[in-house]
């Protein structure tokens, strides 16, 4: 088994892990009780899934064709950069559009601050 083949397998392995991760986060998005918790599933584990698979692809191409794709690296950077922001934006939007927290939530930390602001 050459180093290339190992590399290929490693890449594919990463991809597989990524895909499993994706399904898990999808289950999370189904099962978790409210939007705030679901956004965890969507942004955190999903991002991990995509990073894994992109990395896997990158490694695969590197290994099999000795091809270093700048675009892939750029893609990874981009996702890495923007995923948290979009997560942040959605949850903020959810909060501001008065989506209710799940019943099991114990505390709404922002409630007082925002309410005070509103009064001002």
């Amino acid at each position, binding site marked *: 088994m050459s180093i290339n083949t190992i590399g290929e397998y490693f890449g594919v392995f990463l*991809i597989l892990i990524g895909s499993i991760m994706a399904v898990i*986060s999808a289950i999370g998005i189904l099962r978790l009780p409210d939007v705030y918790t679901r956004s965890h599933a969507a942004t955190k584990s999903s991002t991990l899934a995509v990073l894994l*698979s992109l990395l896997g692809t990158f490694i695969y191409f590197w290994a099999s064709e000795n091809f270093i794709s700048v675009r892939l690296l750029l893609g990874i950077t981009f*996702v890495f950069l923007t995923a948290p922001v979009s*997560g942040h*934006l959605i949850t903020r939007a959810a909060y501001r*559009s008065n989506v209710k927290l799940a019943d099991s939530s114990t505390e709404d930390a922002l409630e007082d601050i925002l309410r005070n602001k509103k009064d001002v």
Partner: protein
Amino acid sequence: MIDTILTIALSLFILAIILALYRIIRGPSMPDRVVALDMIGVNLISGVAVFSVVLSTHAFLEVILIVGILAFISTLALARFVERGDIVEHKHDR
């Protein structure tokens, strides 16, 4: 061997998409749906990446980046819409 794994991986990604699609249809709230859409976008990125491995072509690497960019833009737009209704704001509104 590799092909089988890749097919499985691809199927799993699409399964994830289907699950997210359920969330989009069901809601219940708008942000839920946006979250799910964001997730679909992210999974699509992975899907395209895997598929270019399957075909061993470089032709789709642009697509990966584009999906990343656009998923971000749509999520941003949707979030803005949910939040304010008006997605491009005016200075004097602020």
